[in-house]
């Protein structure tokens, strides 16, 4: 019955969006197991992020400031997280299951000799045993798992949890250096966009290879603009160069669960569904009435996207403005 350490990450001076549902997971575990939730921020000149985390619903924040943490490099982040985990007597160490969590948490687990479960969507207790649920096989099966070691490492699927109960905590700021020996961070080439980030957006307009060209995606972008939506795409569309890899939704792309998801000219392969079937309302537009996407869609329109999307854009614009 130790404490819960939440390892967060941040970008552009703000806590990453997936860090918040990770705090919610920690709150769920605290309700089951007790202990204190300690939030960890590693960065360089990132005090603002620590202050933000202090309001997010943790009991305490530890902020370690050092040039070695300016960018999330697995060796540095993991080494520091391990040191803090031992210091705060953490029995659970968790992080969002995003590109960063996936990168450094395995090292954390190894160094703590802890068992690890990734992509957790729920925690519960059966008698004395803490249990975790996670999706497998493109979300077609939910596995119930237990970690046998005293320290447990978890990455959390951010779409599975709502916003945490906010709170007020103190920030313990300190300095420690964990330089990486093997890995050098070179650059982060950010793609700045007027649109919301795919994983945060309430509405996503997504296109498949059936659209035929990158130009056709422009038609979807007009729809996205009317709705204030993010753009998504199937893997096939990305691999064909019709859409940037950044837009890929699916098992090997991003997992999203917006309020509204438009799947346009997307057949609905299970790997794509794995990335979006948690969406609240799904609309499918496809010329093929047998397309598997219609199995998960709430509303399906069997039609040619080129006929239908411009009309849809116009009518939704009228609704939004009227």
């Amino acid at each position: 019955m130790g404490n819960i350490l939440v390892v967060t990450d941040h970008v552009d001076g703000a806590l990453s969006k997936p860090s918040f549902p990770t705090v919610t997971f920690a709150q769920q575990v605290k309700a089951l197991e007790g202990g204190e939730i300690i939030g960890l921020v590693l960065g360089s000149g990132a005090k603002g992020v620590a202050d933000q985390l202090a309001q997010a619903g943790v009991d305490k924040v530890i902020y370690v400031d050092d040039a070695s943490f300016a960018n999330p490099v697995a060796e540095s982040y993991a080494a520091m997280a391990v040191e803090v985990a031992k210091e705060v007597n953490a029995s659970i160490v968790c992080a969002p299951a995003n590109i960063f969590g996936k990168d450094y948490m395995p090292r954390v687990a190894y160094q703590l000799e802890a068992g690890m479960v990734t992509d957790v969507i729920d925690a519960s207790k059966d008698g004395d045993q803490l249990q975790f649920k996670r999706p497998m096989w493109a979300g077609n099966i939910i596995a119930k798992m237990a970690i046998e070691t005293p320290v447990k490492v978890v990455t959390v699927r951010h779409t599975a949890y709502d916003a945490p109960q906010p709170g007020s905590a103190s920030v313990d700021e300190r300095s420690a250096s964990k330089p990486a020996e093997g890995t050098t961070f070179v650059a982060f080439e950010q793609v700045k966009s007027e649109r919301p980030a795919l994983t945060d957006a309430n509405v996503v307009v997504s296109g498949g290879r059936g659209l035929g060209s990158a130009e056709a995606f422009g038609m979807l972008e007009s729809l996205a603009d009317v709705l204030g939506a993010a753009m998504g795409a199937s893997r096939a569309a990305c691999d064909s160069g019709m859409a940037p890899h950044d837009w890929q939704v699916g098992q090997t792309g991003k997992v999203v669960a917006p309020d509204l998801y438009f799947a346009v000219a997307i057949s609905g392969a299970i790997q794509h569904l794995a990335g979006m079937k948690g969406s609240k309302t799904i609309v499918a537009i496809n010329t093929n009435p047998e397309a598997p996407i219609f199995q998960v869609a709430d509303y399906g329109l069997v039609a040619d996207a080129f006929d239908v999307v411009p009309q849809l854009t116009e009518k939704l614009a009228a609704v939004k403005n009227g």
Partner: protein
Amino acid sequence: VDMELKDGAVALTRQADGGEIKLEVKLPAVISRADMPDEWVRFPPLPGIMKAKRKPLDTFSPEDLGVTPSPRVKILGYEAPPSRAAGQIVESVDQLVDKLVNEAKAV
């Protein structure tokens, strides 16, 4: 998404939320890739397949390598994910807009 071999290191580009990150990793390194672009898939040539039959296959047990496998994680069971309610086919854009606004209240 991209890899380039340099002297004793690999220069990598990976996807992150909102852009791409470039790193350089010294070898030896473990590199994973979530999906394989079609042009990376290589089919073994027939002579290669034939030669493979004659290659040595060394078998080790975990003990030979000084490893004691002790599972740290246990799978307790499986269940089906929550199912979605059946959807409906709409006949026109007007009908779709009507449903989205009035029924799903999604817009």
